[in-house]
């Protein structure tokens, strides 16, 4: 029999739930429901919406293309080096995003170590461009993909790869035809989480990419700006972001929330 927690614990739990839910209720209560469609279809909002969808999708793609190889390498590392490498990869998850943005600026900004070279050699200036938005988003979103895929890779029974090797498959063929399909659910989970994280990115983006309408002003930035002069637009955009977050959580409910609770 499962025993109920004592009353004061329940009371604290209710306070916690209130803390999480109340702001959302307040937001919904202030929402201009009747004009919602018109607000979301207006020029600036639509610009931010499209830019957000495009950059978040691009960032998720970058995470998959670069993150899967990184996860593969991490999953096969042993010893203290692996622990350090794993901590470094997870760092952006706990780092204040604005610090990440500043770090990106020093690396890839016009005066940055790499940015300087890119500008000299190829005339590429990343800062304040949509590409900078994608980079900032990929920076904060990468750990979600890498950690999800790496954990899955490490849980695959190594004998599947042994079996593939004895059947004549080299390392690349084995990875693509055996290992990767077996971790596909975790890859999908990681990619969706990375996409959602990228969509909500604020601090690193505004620091590294700036806040240029139609170029680097994503939805979270537009919400922040709209709070100053157009509260209704801010609320409409917020509701949209909440809706997206809900859809993602519902879609992943079995894969992320429950499985992480079970292990």
């Amino acid at each position, binding site marked *: 029999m499962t025993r109920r927690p004592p009353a004061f614990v329940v009371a604290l739990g209710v306070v916690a739930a209130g803390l999480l839910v109340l702001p959302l209720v307040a937001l919904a209560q202030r929402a201009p429901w009747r004009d919602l469609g018109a607000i979301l279809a207006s020029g600036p909002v639509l610009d931010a919406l499209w830019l957000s969808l495009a950059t978040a999708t691009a960032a998720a793609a970058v995470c998959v293309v670069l993150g899967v190889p990184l996860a593969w390498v991490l999953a096969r590392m042993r010893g203290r080096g692996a622990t350090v490498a794993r901590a470094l990869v997870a760092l952006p998850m706990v780092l204040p995003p604005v610090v990440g943005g500043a770090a990106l600026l020093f690396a890839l900004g016009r005066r940055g170590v790499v940015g300087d070279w890119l500008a000299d050699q190829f005339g590429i200036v990343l800062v304040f461009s949509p590409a900078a938005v994608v980079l900032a988003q990929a920076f904060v979103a990468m750990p979600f993909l890498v950690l999800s895929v790496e954990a899955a890779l490490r849980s695959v029974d190594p004998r599947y790869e*042994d*079996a593939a090797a004895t*059947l004549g498959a080299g390392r690349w063929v084995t990875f693509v035809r055996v290992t990767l399909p*077996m971790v596909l659910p975790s890859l999908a989970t990681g990619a969706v989480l990375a996409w959602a994280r990228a969509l909500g990115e604020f601090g690193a983006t505004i620091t590294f990419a700036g806040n240029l309408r139609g170029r680097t002003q994503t939805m979270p930035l537009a919400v922040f700006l709209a709070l100053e002069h157009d509260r209704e637009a801010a609320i409409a955009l917020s509701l949209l972001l909440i809706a997206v977050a809900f859809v993602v959580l519902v879609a992943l409910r079995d894969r992320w929330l429950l499985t992480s609770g079970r292990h």
Partner: protein
Amino acid sequence: MLRADVHLQRGDLDLDVALDAREGETVGVVGPNGAGKTTLLRALAGLETPASGRIELDGEVLDDPASGRHVPAEERSVGFVFQDAVLFPHLSVLDNVAFGLRARGYARGDARREAHAWLARLGLADRAGDRPGALSGGQAQRVALARALAPAPRLLLLDEPLASLDAANQVEVRTALASDLSEVAAVRVLVTHDPVDAAVLADRLVVLEGGRVTQSGSPADLAARPRTSYVAQLVGVNLWRGAADGTAVHLSGGGVLVVAEPRVGPVLVTVRPQAVALHRARPEGSPRNTWAGVVETVEPAGDRVRVRLAGPPAVVAEVTQAAVAALGLRPGTPTWVSVKATELEVSPA
């Protein structure tokens, strides 16, 4: 022809084994857990690299650490059947069997056609479209065999292929496996710890204990002349080591046995459990060996009963169910043991 001389260390295991096997022959590698059987098989497959030694298959050198040569698993003509099949769960049965052919460059259609032929040969054509999860343990193991055989390997390695099946399935799959294997031209090495598997599937046995070969020969040889207590247990006879001085053998585990043929020096003494008699009181008369024992276990063996007794010397007796009832045999019962000297077989150790 496989010529292998494998030395390698993994944790507590220090493996040092020489093994030869001819084409069309099944060599059974038997031994207790931790003896290094699977590690040996993995070395033959190229999944482990020997520290020294040499592995040669049909004249091709696969491993020669002295010259730095190690052919990786994917470049060896080897088929490997794992203990619990290890079929790829995301591929259909047909694509599992076609996997090796695809990896070796067959076009998809050709690989599938060939794979289908293999499944048909093993009577599993109707399961081609299923996922491995839908198969019974025995079917999965035979699909694993088809998968290993499809690329026509010159060396087939089987690691306890029946161990993960339940007892009822084992008999059926063992019989099927025996006929499947007899049609394969490759050199075959089978690892098992089951004496029945070894007797049915292997032409020749190599006993591995603690990383070393302790005995080899046909199953009949081993049964007739076991040289270690493991082999004796495996083939179901009693075996003691001792020092002979005429017809008296002083056993190294304690106790003295009188044998028919006089010998001198270290010997192995064996006796079949059927030749060991049990009594309520000390039996009279000669020429008999008698000693007091205590029953440890009583278990059925066919229509008879195997009784294991602590000695010294410890002994296994096989008696009728009537005798068990008459003597009131159960764990803890003190009992007298007798063996005729003429039933004891003595060979030099």
